[in-house]
């Protein structure tokens, strides 16, 4: 079956421009996550969607970052007025609904979008 897909794979933009990154999760996965990996760093949690619940936005680094998930499927991460420090690989993951304490629900990652802000 199809895995998590992300588009574009690469995005080069100028400082100050807005960008939109897209994620298509695995069909049937109700949980969707965005992470980013800056150079030499581990993955940093950004935002988490689960079903119709309010998203957990606790990892978004500033109000220039926002994300939405339409129809419980596709998600778009938007970065407004991009800055050079936003340059990173943005990774999306999806999973079945997390069930506390029963077992770990594997998060399946997409290949990422490499964002370069000039």
């Amino acid at each position, binding site marked *: 079956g199809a895995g998590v897909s992300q588009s574009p794979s690469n995005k080069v933009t100028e400082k100050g421009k807005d960008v939109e990154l897209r994620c298509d999760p695995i069909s049937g996965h109700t949980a969707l996550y965005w992470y980013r990996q800056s150079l030499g*760093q581990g993955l940093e*949690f950004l935002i988490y969607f689960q079903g119709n619940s309010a998203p957990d936005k606790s990892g978004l680094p500033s109000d220039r970052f926002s994300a939405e998930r339409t129809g419980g499927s596709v998600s778009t991460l938007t970065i407004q007025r991009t800055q050079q420090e936003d340059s990173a690989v943005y990774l999306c993951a999806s999973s079945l609904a997390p069930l506390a304490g029963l077992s770990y629900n594997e998060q399946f990652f997409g290949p990422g979008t490499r964002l370069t802000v000039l």
Partner: protein
Amino acid sequence: DQQVKQNSPSLSVQEGRISILNCDYTNSMFDYFLWYKKYPAEGPTFLISISSIKDKNEDGRFTVFLNKSAKHLSLHIVPSQPGDSAVYFCAASDLYGNKLVFGAGTILRVKS
């Protein structure tokens, strides 16, 4: 502050020998610990996990050990194979597993 640390940026091992990747954490509230493997230009893939109530979990050539008192976990790969060459990320989460906290990764090179 880094809650999950992988202090070795890289590790080189001969094919057939054991690879040991280490990870330390600071948050005693973590409930799950995981290892992810990443090849270039691909997203990370889940390798193995361990619950905080266990001290060992084994899956084929991969074994994860957890020492809660030391806040330390390790991944053992034996025997190591050239196809194991990748970046290995240690991660931790709470009981719900919905916000993974990752280490910076260790590059493993298995030489044939």
